[in-house]
């Protein structure tokens, strides 16, 4: 586990870094659980609505959207594949993501390619640490 500025990043999963998406990926037997990381949960504001409206996803493409702070953001899929399950508990009360981002997974995907190689998916402790530090710096600039 890494902790930066009070935000925790468990090392039992990977992180998707493209365009500030801040998603985590946890590998299961034949599928991957996907949710938002602590940085997104803290910075995005209370999530009041979330929807996943596609059954198949392409890496980096929008598969739904969520509302926080009267702002609609797109929800991206970090990998290509078939969306096999959506977490109804989180759809009903999306603020669970803010309260406990690592339990509140959003969707489960059966990936086309199980290796999930992408320059935007990281798992190394130092890489995660550097990425979050850079993200915090960006916030200070903007």
């Amino acid at each position, binding site marked *: 586990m890494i902790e930066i500025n009070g935000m925790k990043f468990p090392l039992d999963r990977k992180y998707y870094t493209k365009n500030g998406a801040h998603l985590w990926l946890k590998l299961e037997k034949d599928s991957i659980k996907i949710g938002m990381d602590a940085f997104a949960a803290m910075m995005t504001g209370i999530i009041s609505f979330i929807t996943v409206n596609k059954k198949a996803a392409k890496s980096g493409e929008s598969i739904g959207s969520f*509302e926080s702070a009267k702002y609609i953001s797109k929800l991206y899929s970090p990998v290509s594949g078939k969306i096999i399950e959506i977490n109804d508990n989180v759809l009903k009360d999306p*603020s669970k993501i803010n309260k406990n981002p690592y339990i509140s997974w959003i969707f489960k995907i059966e990936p086309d390619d199980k290796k999930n190689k992408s320059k935007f998916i990281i798992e190394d402790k130092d890489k995660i640490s550097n990425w979050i530090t850079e993200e915090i710096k960006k916030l200070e600039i903007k």
Partner: protein
Amino acid sequence: MKYFNLGELNWKQTQLIYHALAYKNIESLVLNSPKESFMCVGLPQNPQDEIDINYCKKNNIGIFRREIGGGTVLLDNNQLFYNLIVNRNNPIVPHFPERFFKKFLQPVVQTYHEIGISAEFRPLCDLIVNEKKISGNGGGEIGECKVLAGNLLLDFNYEGMARAISSPDSLRGKFLELMRNNITTVKKELNIIPKKEEICSTLVRKFEDFIGTFTKGKLDTEITKKMSELDKLYSSDKWLYQRGTNQIGREIKVREGVFLFHKSFGTKEGNEGITCEIEKNLIKKVTFTNEYLLSNIDKKQFKEKLVGLKYDRNILSNKILELIKKMEL
């Protein structure tokens, strides 16, 4: 970046324009007002839950479901709309909502200051004068762009808004009262309404000071074609009445932190409507629709257990259910 100062438009065009520009990835500032009144809901809302559709149809009030966030609102000619459309990868654009609103609403705050109104930004995205809202805003991602959409309230039709929302009749009066206490207008603050053109010039200048010089945009066929294409989609029942997540109870928002929450609860004696007034995100007052129901519970004690609690519609609903169950025993 371009600016489109479009004057008065057909109500639907005021919404189609910023969606089309965002889908066409044209970074721009758009200013306009609608010729007619209409109701506008945010992406997660279903007009069937939010709006008295029959009333709107009978009174020729249009309904639009936008692709961005924010609440249900009556929009009309006494409001001046601004839309800022910026590419999501533009380095000036903050990624997270609160910072996005705080940054890009600064030119609007300064415009209010220049016309003599001391408005200030209040998170999430309200502009406030003496604790009253004077501008409503929403935002979101459309295509490759991030969009800010908001209005300067030159005047406001409080009664029209209270009538056009979907609400138990018992709530309309309370909603009207809360709006009057929590929403102000340029007219109320200055006793006059400056000319829209003058306000538009100030808005453009303040946004230019903040972002850089604009060039005048023209509504070419590429943009109008996209608007027509989107019009077909947004006018379809499939889009308009698409159901989002089922929400618990009816929440009517007046401004940030000020709400009415109403829900009907099953009791041993029948259904009882319970209404909560929320101020500063705290439950301030609790009322029962049928005072004669729940005859075997101490209503004063019931209310006392809710007043002062932090408002969260899920938690509140569960708490009420729990109290009914416990006190009915």
